[in-house]
């Protein structure tokens, strides 16, 4: 059912799809990895395409996978904060709060690396030429991404992750700071 809904969800959260491609394009640019094809958004599956030359070391591939997730999670939490505060407080958010919340949610939801990127990182961490440090960091990261990917098939994990980081944590912060 969720597979059928994928293009619809992608269309509803299109800023995240565009940001997903743009972030990786930016990383490729910073690390001098040629980008062969970019499609920021389209109706269909996949909803965005970025073809780039293979990264020539594990650290670069690691960065391609992790950096957008890290940055967009923080950005999404900041953007989702006003909406989370409105619900934690008076319960009647303004239009701007909803707009910010939707944008934050979209960014975080699409921040996870794709299957192909995780598979490539997996190949790098298994490679005998990869440094021990990168293997130590890379293995658990790959495992986490694989588990998240499987979870997303059964329980819409990326959406739940976005709700948690955009709204859930800040809501809990209010509960904590308000005291018993």
């Amino acid at each position, binding site marked *: 059912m969720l597979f059928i809904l994928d293009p619809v969800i*992608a269309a509803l959260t299109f*800023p995240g*799809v*565009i*940001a*997903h*491609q*743009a972030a*990786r*394009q*930016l990383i*490729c*640019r910073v*690390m*001098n*990895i*040629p*980008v*062969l094809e970019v499609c*920021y958004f389209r109706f269909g*599956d*996949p*909803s*965005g*395409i*970025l*073809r*780039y*030359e*293979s990264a*020539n070391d594990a650290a670069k591939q690691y960065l391609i996978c992790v950096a957008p997730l890290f940055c967009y999670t923080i*950005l999404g939490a*900041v*953007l989702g*904060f*006003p909406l989370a*505060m*409105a619900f*934690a*407080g*008076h*319960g*009647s958010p303004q239009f701007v709060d909803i*707009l*910010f919340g939707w*944008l*934050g949610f979209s960014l975080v939801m*699409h921040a996870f690396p*794709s*299957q*192909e*990127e995780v598979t*490539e990182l997996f190949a790098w961490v298994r490679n005998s030429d990869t440094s021990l440090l990168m293997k130590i960091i890379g293995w658990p990261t790959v495992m986490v991404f694989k588990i998240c990917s499987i979870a997303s098939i059964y329980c819409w994990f990326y959406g739940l992750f976005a709700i948690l980081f955009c709204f859930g944590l800040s809501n809990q*912060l*209010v*509960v904590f*700071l*308000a*005291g*018993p």
Partner: protein
Amino acid sequence: MKEHSLDKSEGPLKAQCQQCGASGLDGEVMPVCERCRLAIARHDFPTWLKNSAFIVLLMAIIAGVQSPSKLAIAIAYKSAQNHAIREEWEKAFQAYQALSVKFPGNVGTTLSYVEAALHSNHLGEASDGLQLLSHDLISESEGARLLGFQEDLKRALAIQTEKESQR
């Protein structure tokens, strides 16, 4: 959403750059020289994307700037709710009074303020609050709460009048 990095088997490595024909490849997957590689890698972002990124950053800054005040308000609400749950009505009344001044048009806040005022025996304030609400468009559940409070207020005022007449 999915990306595809270039498969190593996609293009055979040749001695010449496939972009400009220069020799001296650096051994990367794509058969282009360093100069062309940099040129491809530095492919510019479209203007609409740059503008959108700027707007998103601006929105994030606005959200960030608003955060401390919004957090303070949310904590005040939560604190008031906690007082009401614990039936510390005088504290709840004071907390909701401050909030209803900040958000005079908020039905939920005013209803909670009226409830706290009724329980803490601030009948005048409860009556003022109810008068503010009666002209607003409110939902069915809020309407039911409002009616309940109006009844409570009538009863409380009757008891108060009776006590005063006994004196």
